[in-house]
């Protein structure tokens, strides 16, 4: 099945992605020392638990899993 104009779901909607500020400060050592999980510069960035990367929420990949599907 070809889908020439297919668009990927973004990390923000993926079950593997989390960007909660408190979690970011726990998971990224030193972030709170001279930075903050609640800073504007972080925008909607977060951690991908599947690939162990820190990235902007607008990215996407083949391993997208809808958040509600994983919760179910």
């Amino acid at each position, binding site marked *: *099945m070809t*889908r*020439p*104009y*297919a*668009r*990927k*779901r*973004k990390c*923000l*909607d993926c079950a593997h992605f989390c*960007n909660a*500020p*408190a979690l970011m*400060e726990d*998971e*990224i*050592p*030193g*972030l*709170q*020392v*001279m*930075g*903050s999980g*609640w*800073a*504007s*510069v*972080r*925008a*909607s*960035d*977060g*951690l991908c638990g599947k690939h*162990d*990367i*820190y*990235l*902007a*929420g*607008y*990215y*996407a*990949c*083949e391993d*997208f*899993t*809808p958040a509600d*599907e994983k919760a179910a």
Partner: protein
Amino acid sequence: MTSNGKDPNLTPTEEAWDEEADDIRIKGVGWKELWLKEDWWAIWVGLGIVIVAVLFFLNGGSIKWIAIKPGRWSTLGEAVGHFTAHLPQYIAMFVLWLAVFTVSVRIMGHKLSEFIPSFIFVFVFSIIIFVIGAWEHAHHYNLEPPLVALVLGMLISNIIGLPKWMDTGFRVEYYIKIGIVLLGATLPFTLIIWAGPVAIVQASIVSIVTFMTIYFVAKKLGLDRRLGATLGAGGAVCGVSGAIAIAGAVGAKKEHAPIAITMVILWAIVMIFFLPLVSRAMGLHAGVAGAWVGTSEFADAAGFAAAQAYGALAENLKDIPGKQDDAVWAFTLMKVVGRDIWIGIWAFVLALISTMKWERKAGQKPDAAEIWWRFPKFVIGFILASLIITAISQGYSFADYGKIVKPELVGPIKTLRTWAFIFCFFSIGLTTRFRELASVGMKPFQAFTTGVVVNVILGFILSAVVFASYWSNLSH
């Protein structure tokens, strides 16, 4: 189709590529950041204080009663006497800070059961730090409040240790952002217009050269390009904030940001002591030293500690030209106007390079709107505070400004700003737990340190030689 509109014949991957899906706009925090991000709360709190101060002033009053600070003392009796006489004011100021912080941190999602006792701890020690700094001989022994706060905090956190939950009250960035907004009220807008372009040119030269140095040394050493970019942003743009923004923009590995953050923290702490000490040894004008700190410090909080410390030396020691305001103003112009505000552009450009050149990523391209979302919003509060006070001051002669506006309006705001800074510096020390920082390999250390050396030398040449006349004439 199922009742929710989904095609049950699609596999999860095909569902992900569903061309019928809405073109989902970037979601996440969005405009909710107005009450969920520290940058905006720094504006609400900082501008709120400025506006209340202005309202009192315009009605013949002043907030100076509540903006209390320890006076200079030479005997312990004098210090104790001051507190006895002004205890209700200290209690009132504490209640003001606690009320403001309690509301804001709760809305941002922190636990008040953790924040309140932690902030009480910060406040009590801040009084002690302020008192030490008010000792008449403090400057001769370099017992400047920022340095005392930092060292005391590090001793407590690394030797004695505190429970982890207390971190809730050690909000370094929140305190410094409020301080910067209040600083705007003490910095004439005309100065931003006059010296701002020079700061942007100088800071841009140093930032670009430093970033390129770190990135290409990292590449030569065989490090991942994303790590090189993250290290470069940390060393060249704005420290931890720069590192975390670029890490997200380029999709760095989870361990890249902590490595860059460790390098930033270690070198930022070194520079807090190194830059003022070398400046003092060379007898640099306070404005020149402040500009140098602005190009060669890595984080706002650390830079204010260094600039404020050197400024206090200039104020109290005859062999250092310039005033305290010169150092702090120069630093602010260089770091906030010259470097911080450009982080969104750095992130957008590096995201484009990352997705189009390093690793072609299918899917959404970086959105230029990221330049706004990543913009450090507290700078808006800084500019507005400067505009408001500059506008109020227009109606006064130079003499009347010194006699009326400074003691009744600007002075109390400056006092509250100093409290916010001390909360910040003490929190830096309390959160700098060396055991918990990520370990850094030799190659990232080499790349970052090469950038530090280039940065410090180039920053000095531009501040103390090329643009020295600007930085040593800010007060005029």
